[in-house]
């Protein structure tokens, strides 16, 4: 019986490790020289060779791409959370005859995947002259993130007591002061959840960025990394390993610090009733 228990545990640890294997592979690959990468692609490196990182940092525009990813993600989060939470507040607490219609309208946004409207979005962004600017991605990303943000915050706001605003109103605060001083801090947990969700989605977004951010100086990590792979070709896997690890590092660090928060955010939609 005990033997079986140990065996099943070992099996589980092994299954868990298959998910972590690529991390191991990225780390070891990045430390191998060009020759060793071929001779020993999956083992532990014979000697630690840090040169790949130096070379990757000089040839691969990591800082530019990293900064771009950061701008796209932060911009989308800021825009979506501000506008989305205000709309959610309006729909759940204010008197407007189109409240339920607007809620239904926004929920339609959950059905259309962003990929299917890439062609008209590309045209629209050209027409608006924002193709080679950060707004070219931030605006469409926000447009697509708003649906789930509004619906989640709407559910959250409806559960709050009306007395909060009544008290604030008695004190002579107007709706803006009430919203930003009283309501905003209270909905923070829901906003944080949305923040994590948008961060993961936008940081890793590929299909739209591939088309819109065609100029190298505006590429986020996902697209920049692909163009770098194509430049390096299949000649130097150690270098590829180093650039992959560099690109994943920010996300891995965030994940190590907040993996329970990330888990809660990712699963929030599944159990929200």
């Amino acid at each position, binding site marked *: 019986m005990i033997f079986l228990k140990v065996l099943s545990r070992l099996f589980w640890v092994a299954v868990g490790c298959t998910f972590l294997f690529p991390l191991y592979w990225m780390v070891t690959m990045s430390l191998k020289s060009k020759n060793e990468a071929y001779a020993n692609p999956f083992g532990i490196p014979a000697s630690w060779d840090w040169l790949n990182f130096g070379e990757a940092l000089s040839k691969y525009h990591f800082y530019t791409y990293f900064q771009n990813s950061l701008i796209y993600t932060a911009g989308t989060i800021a825009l979506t959370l501000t506008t989305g939470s205000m709309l959610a507040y309006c729909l759940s607490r*204010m008197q407007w005859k189109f409240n339920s219609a607007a809620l239904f309208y926004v929920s339609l946004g959950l059905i259309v995947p962003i990929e299917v409207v890439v*062609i008209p979005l590309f045209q629209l962004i050209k027409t608006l002259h924002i193709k080679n600017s950060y707004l070219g991605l931030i*605006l469409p990303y926000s447009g697509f993130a708003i649906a789930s943000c509004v619906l989640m915050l709407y559910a959250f706001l409806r559960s709050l007591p009306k007395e909060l605003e009544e008290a604030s109103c008695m004190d002579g605060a107007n709706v803006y002061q009430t919203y930003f001083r009283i309501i905003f801090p209270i909905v923070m947990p829901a906003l944080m959840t949305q923040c994590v969700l948008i961060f993961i989605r936008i940081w890793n977004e*590929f299909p739209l960025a591939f088309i819109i951010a065609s100029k190298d100086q505006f590429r986020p990590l996902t697209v920049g990394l692909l163009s770098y792979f194509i430049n390096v070709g299949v000649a130097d896997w150690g270098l590829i390993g180093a650039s992959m690890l560099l690109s994943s590092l920010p996300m891995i660090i965030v994940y190590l610090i907040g993996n329970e928060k990330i888990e809660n955010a990712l699963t929030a939609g599944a159990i929200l009733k």
Partner: protein
Amino acid sequence: MNKYFSTKMSLFVFAAPALLLFTVFCVYPLLPEIWMSLHDHDGFRNLGFVGLDNYREVLSMPSFWTAHRNTYLIVGISLLLGLPLSMMLSLFMDVQTPRLRRFFKTAAMFPAILSVTVVAQIWLAFYEPNWGLFNSILHSIGLSDWTHSWLTEKKTVMPSIGLSFLWQYIGLNAILFYTGIKTIPKDYYEAALLDGASFAQVCLKITIPLLQNVIKYVLILSTLGSMAFYSHVRVMTAGGPGDTSRTVIYQMYYMAFDTSQFGKGTAIAVIFILQCLFISFVIQRFVARGKLEF
């Protein structure tokens, strides 16, 4: 208070920005999409109204049907293989010690936070024909006949790409299921165990039926996610060899951005949106009638 708060001005300030963003970037593009699909358009100029010609031509292209077969193969893999595997993982996760479960959850969610570019490139190395992981293993256990040039042979390319996708999201789905399992009151299990039910019976008769809503949620996410399958293909094979690994979205990109036939690209998109709507409708209507909210 409500009268005082809900002035025309404040309603406008609160509702307009989000509605405007949503309308302009999420809903409005559907109109030019339909309009463009009825025109001959090269991305810069509209070359005239052509009625349904784009649709006719797109439907008569063999690549269009290859792309559909590939997309639905991916949908099939992630629903018929991925979801049952995720469910099994989550059921076993439930009976583990907390520490092992913590480790397992952290590991299983890890691939889902990596970017597609990284995941696809890793699997590119695994499938490498000369020194890649799969062929090395097959050689070392004496099954050299089974080795393939996985991503350049027509028969193996799509299942190989599908496996990388499966691996990336199977753990996340398992965690979604597990979150649902945690919300089931423990008394149900105790009562069943007192009646002498086996683990398998408990899973089939209690856990899975009570998970209906979560299952539906994961089903919709996985279906729409795999319908839009594109990025892995872009990084791993760029649609090749030939057009064998193009998915519908890939074919749409190809028509518009590689051959400058925006009219045909949007025609594919319109056909595809109808499929997405139909499939979401079927899931909403026939799977777990309970209301779904996000």
